[in-house]
């Protein structure tokens, strides 16, 4: 009983985020990048991402979604529904974490 209640710092700055919408990686992880996504819910209940906005503010249209499957990403660190998308001829993996957040694997030099 109670061993699992733990102390959380309250640091409320700016608008309060719903707790369940907190990103699941708080520590710096160079390979994981959360992105803004515009998506469409179809009347069949499907969720289709249309475009994503990278950290630098540039928006990329998603030309095609080749495949959708549940997948874990060891590199970025996380699991969710993975959309294999074609963006400007290149395939990227866009993950939906099922808590309102989307992430992609970031390419780093090392």
């Amino acid at each position, binding site marked *: 009983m109670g061993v699992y*209640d733990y102390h959380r710092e309250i640091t409320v700055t700016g608008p309060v985020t719903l707790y369940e919408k907190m990103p699941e990686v708080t520590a710096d992880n160079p390979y994981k990048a959360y992105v803004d996504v515009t998506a469409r819910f179809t009347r069949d209940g499907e969720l289709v991402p249309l475009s994503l906005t990278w950290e630098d503010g540039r928006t990329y249209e998603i030309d095609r979604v080749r495949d959708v499957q549940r997948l874990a990403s060891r590199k970025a660190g996380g699991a969710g529904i993975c959309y294999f998308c074609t963006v400007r001829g290149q395939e990227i993996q866009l993950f939906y974490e099922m808590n309102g957040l989307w992430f992609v694997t970031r390419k780093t030099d090392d």
Partner: protein
Amino acid sequence: MDRTILHSDCNCYYASVEMLHQPKLWDIPMAVGGDPEARHGIILTANYIAKRRGVKTGMALWQARQVCPEITFVPPRMDLYIKFSRMIREIYSEYTDLIEPFGLDEAWLDTSGSCSVKGDGMRIAKEISGRIKKEIGITVSVGVSWNKIYAKLGSDYKKPDAITEFSRQNYREKAFPLPAGDLLYVGRSTQRKLHNLGITTIGELAGTDPALLQRIFGKVGLMLYAFAAGLDETPVSPEHTEAPVKSIGNSTTTPRDLTCDEDVKLVLYLLSESVAKRCRENGFAGQVIEIYVRDNELYSVGRQRKIAVPTNISHEIEAVAMELFHEVYHWHRPIRSIGVRVADLKPESIPWQISLFQSPEQREKLLAADRAADDIRRRFGFHAVQRGIMYCDRYLSSLNASADDHMIHPHSYLERGNRTGAEKILHLNV
């Protein structure tokens, strides 16, 4: 016909989930443990690298640091583990509806019904294990057998990321040499008693006369025999059929010792609010209020009281809890942890006898206030609205009393009664 039972056990569950989310933890010794600042300083799970160095679940953080100085501690994130556990269960549910969770990280599955479609137990086990690795990103150990006990033995047999089958053909070679202590319900003292009888392995236990075991251990003796001999018939419970809730409680180890009535009042309000909220969410009102106090020497006392009217109003729960506290505790030592529990649960809508000394209008208002606070917290977060007393000590009140700790503990194997079929054993032999 024999059943096909799988027992799946996630390897170092909390540590695995953390390692998945923070890849830099992959190849260093790490452990998920309470926050030492908040004084919950024990290891909940360690990864294999740390385990090899001698770190064990339940150790204090400083002990772990002694055996493995470069260990990294990560505070637990229960909500994340619950989410991943749910995702894993979704995978199970594609194979069967008979899923009985045993804590967050273990589950029994009865796949007898889907074997004609999906293949035999081993094949399903391989598929499930592969999918969890690929889709969730953690590894599991799976045991396959015709009863739950052997399936669990199988999942403990080889770790990590392994599948073990105890079939009718091989169980005598593989399961019988295992120590009897590996069985459920064979703890330290049972093991000692068995040892005095010259029984150390499961095979020896299975070879013992059940009547003798019954004379020594009573009913449990027969059950142990059934477990060891693979005669356990306990069914795997269908999904979403947990035993009914008997009580709702919450307790906490406070970030600092409580030294005066004010402190206790503050923490009791936090706990009562959380308990009352959970009662309301589930449509319950309770008529027995119980408190539990543990001082800094770890002596604990508890007391409960039946109240006139079932309640789920945080103010009323706190008031009774505070009265109980004054009765049981006289401040010989500071307090380290404290808990509140509401039992004798009744449906919220149950009619009650109005008391002469309690105004129903007032109660209505308190209830409405609680509900309004719930709504504000739902929309804007837990700290959006608080009682004034929380400002007396911000450090103490920053404690999060809403953690979902009530769903973590494994339920007892015999929670729904003894369904092992052990009583029949004597008749078989007679």
